[in-house]
């Protein structure tokens, strides 16, 4: 018993260290935007709402758009009415950026009145922009672009 005690302690420390590393890595945006959505699309994912929302988002977007979303952690939607304008919808919290001529011109904030899974919020922005951009812009709060972007 005495012999294995130090090894058990070392194993425990190693496991805690490994878990901490995994959590740190999972918080890294470029990793989390790939890992968490992938996990949510697995059938065994324990949160049914997240699974349903991610599956719906994936089936609604083109494979190329979904790949870009996972790679960049944002979805770009071209304005249906204004040439050269795109809306950059973030995955997770944050404002929608309006990009014109490659530069951010303003930030938009719009949110659902009821809580939705992260993937549903992305889909919500996409559908509202594509289906009724004027009302979307009218409803959203507009903020000037950040000075550093």
């Amino acid at each position, binding site marked *: 018993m005495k012999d294995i005690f130090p090894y058990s302690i070392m194993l425990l420390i190693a496991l805690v260290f490994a878990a901490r590393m995994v959590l740190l890595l999972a918080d890294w945006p470029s990793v989390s935007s790939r890992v968490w959505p992938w996990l949510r699309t697995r059938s065994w994912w324990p949160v049914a709402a997240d699974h349903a929302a991610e599956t719906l988002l994936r089936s609604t977007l083109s494979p190329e758009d979904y790949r870009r979303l996972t790679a960049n952690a944002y979805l770009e939607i071209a304005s249906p009415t204004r040439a050269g304008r795109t809306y950059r919808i973030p995955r997770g919290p944050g404002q929608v950026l309006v990009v014109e001529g490659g530069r951010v011109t303003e930030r938009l904030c719009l949110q659902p*009145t009821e809580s939705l899974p992260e993937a549903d919020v992305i889909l919500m922005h996409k*559908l509202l922009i594509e289906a009724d951009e004027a009302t979307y812009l009218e409803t959203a709060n507009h903020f000037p672009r950040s000075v550093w972007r």
Partner: protein
Amino acid sequence: MGMLRVLSRSGDDQFTWNRVAVEVGDPEALAAVREAERIFEEQRAHGATAVRLAPGRPAERIERFDPEAEQIVMVPRVVGG
């Protein structure tokens, strides 16, 4: 199949109906359509936006329930944040 999806905290709630059976007047299919229409109107009354989706076509906002739609997504009411 036609499908009504309501975005909600549970992901999305789905209601389906058989479009072919509706055309031939199948009572079960007609009841399913009526139920979907009732939910559509209920959601609209709460301020939801209805968007019709079809493959290869841009999303389209609709004001009235369309039983021939392949998929309708109800987006809950939104406000400026």
